[in-house]
């Protein structure tokens, strides 16, 4: 129950197409110039079922049932192709007018068909069969669960699919540059403070999550490192492990609790709330969230 489907909409909000890991394995954050992408069709994408989905031309009417995909498409200037999405997409503001066709629990096939899409992108597999039976073209790629640098590859993939490869390359390269810049600043620093993220009710990400990876990048020691995925961590463990930084959805629930009075993050005034949900959606804004967190924790290093 740690990750009910609806929850995942936000938390692991999926990225776009998966690319071969080779493209980003060795030095993921190096902004090396990749071979000039060409808007060449047919273009084949491997989906999470292992099938090849082939594009002969850019789809004009995309149902992007995924916050991250919507953000990516708008970021590369292809937002006009998005005709439908799910109920919880809140970014970018231009997406406000896009038709909504349901959420993880009720995916309206009827509404999907009525939008006459030439591509439906989903990050979970339950509606695939119905969509395909309705004669729709489906691309299914699971959400990113680690290696957030793959967001850049997902951006490039959407660029290839929509024939906007060079715009996508710019966005993806910028993303990688910003990650690399943080990596560089962190390079010569030793281990940073211990930290905890409380996304509400003591639910905390472990190390095998996108957030865990952000902790690594910022050299934070996640006190919930031995938690799998997202789980509720015992408050007594929080007291015992004494985090120096707490990122909380509701800071008052931490600072107002008498049990946490002597926790370093509370006595040092280091209980922070992030200004947006950027770190819960694996899209281009993810790096905004990383930079915000970096500036909160190392105010002298990042401005």
């Amino acid at each position, binding site marked *: 129950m740690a990750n009910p489907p*609806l929850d995942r909409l936000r938390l692991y909000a999926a990225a776009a197409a998966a690319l071969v890991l080779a493209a980003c394995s060795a030095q993921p954050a190096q902004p090396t110039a990749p071979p000039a992408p060409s808007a060449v069709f047919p273009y084949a994408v491997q989906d999470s079922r292992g099938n090849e989905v082939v594009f002969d031309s850019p789809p004009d009417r995309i149902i992007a049932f995924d916050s991250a995909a919507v953000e990516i498409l708008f970021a590369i200037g292809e937002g006009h192709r998005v005709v439908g999405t799910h109920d*919880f997409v809140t970014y970018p503001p231009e997406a406000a007018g896009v038709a909504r066709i349901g959420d993880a629990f*009720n995916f309206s096939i009827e509404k999907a068909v009525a939008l006459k899409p030439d591509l439906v992108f989903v990050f979970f597999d339950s509606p695939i069969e119905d969509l395909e039976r309705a004669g729709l073209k489906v691309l299914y790629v699971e959400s990113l669960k680690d290696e957030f640098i793959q967001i850049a590859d997902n951006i490039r993939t959407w660029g290839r699919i929509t024939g906007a490869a060079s715009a996508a390359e710019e966005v993806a390269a910028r993303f990688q540059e910003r990650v690399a810049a943080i990596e560089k600043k962190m390079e010569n620093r030793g281990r940073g403070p211990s930290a905890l993220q409380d996304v509400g009710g*003591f639910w905390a990400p472990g190390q095998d999550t996108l957030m865990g990876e952000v902790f690594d990048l910022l050299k934070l020691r996640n006190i919930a490192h031995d938690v799998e995925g997202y789980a*509720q*961590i*015992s408050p*007594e463990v929080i007291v015992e492990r004494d985090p120096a930084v707490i990122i909380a959805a509701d800071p008052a629930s931490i600072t107002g609790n008498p049990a946490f009075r002597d926790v370093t993050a509370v006595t040092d005034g280091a209980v922070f709330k992030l200004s947006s949900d950027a770190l819960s959606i694996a899209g281009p804004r993810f790096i905004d969230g990383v930079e915000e967190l970096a500036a909160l924790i190392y105010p002298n290093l990042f401005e």
Partner: protein
Amino acid sequence: MKPLLPLRREAAADSAPGAAQRVPGVESLPSFTYPWRRVLAGVAVLAAVGIVSAGIGPVGIPPLTAAKMLASRLPGLEVAQTWPDSWDTILWQLRLPRIVLAGVVGMALAASGAAYQGLFRNPLADPYLIGAAAGAGLGATAALVTGVPTSIGGVSLLPVAAFTAAVLTVTAAYAISRSPVGAPGPPLTTLILAGVAISSLAGAGAAFLMLRSDPDLRPVLSWLMGGFISAEWSDCLLMLPYLAVGFSVVMTYAWTLNVMQLGEGHSRQLGVDVGRAKPALVGAATLMTAAAVSLSGIIGFVGLVAPHAVRLVWGPDHRTLLPVAALTGGAFLILADVAARTLISPAELPVGVVTAVCGAPFFLYLLRRRRAHAL
């Protein structure tokens, strides 16, 4: 063999000189010897479970040290502090409040369950039967997912919303099933059916709210699954008066519940005022359950299994059943919470999962062993 139902107050001999002169009726029957030992044993077990579990948790405070830490707060005892300050916080601010809250919530749920099983003469009755849980769930979901602030001046509104909605739901079920012809309270079958129907309605309302809401449902889901992870002393203080009042009322009707096992008609012939017992029992059980649910979420199985377990072992006399079942429920829930905080440490399991996983097999074992039909 034990009689199925202790219809008379056993200890008093029928031939006792005074008995014949009294007006025949429940009020005037001589009292039986109350099995205080059984109840005291229950209290001792509950206290022992509470103290032992103070030494068990994800942070490894050795049980002996935990005992010393407890003793150090006793007046007149000088115990040198050999433990870090953080352990004091963990024990006094985190572990003990959840032990106490689990204990009182377990008692409330088990007592309500026993009362409902007796009142409705239905072995499947639990404290949530006529809408308390579904109502509380709707209230809590509404408070969490709609834009209203969830706390005012540091006081969380969630328990208030859950409690209010639970009471309203049961009241609605009660009002709807009230019979128009001046019968003594609503027919119990109608009350169950109305309760079940209203529960479905409230459950559907909660599901709808969740579907239409912000996607981060974790707070709602954690709340619905129940637990003591955020228990504080103030929660225990809030819970205690409900338990005290509710339990006292239920105990007042213990004998009535015994007689009611014969059915409503027979009870009236025996001079038992069923009409007053119904609203009193439903009201007391609802207050206890609503308070419990609003502070710790929906924890299943305690209210169903604890009374049955006691009934299987010690028989169905409500005068003993109610207190012993309550004490058993408290001890059981404290132990379930120990498992919830240690099994996958440093993470926690929802305590409702633990009560079901441990409660169901134990109950089946009892059923098998006793081959009881005394439910």
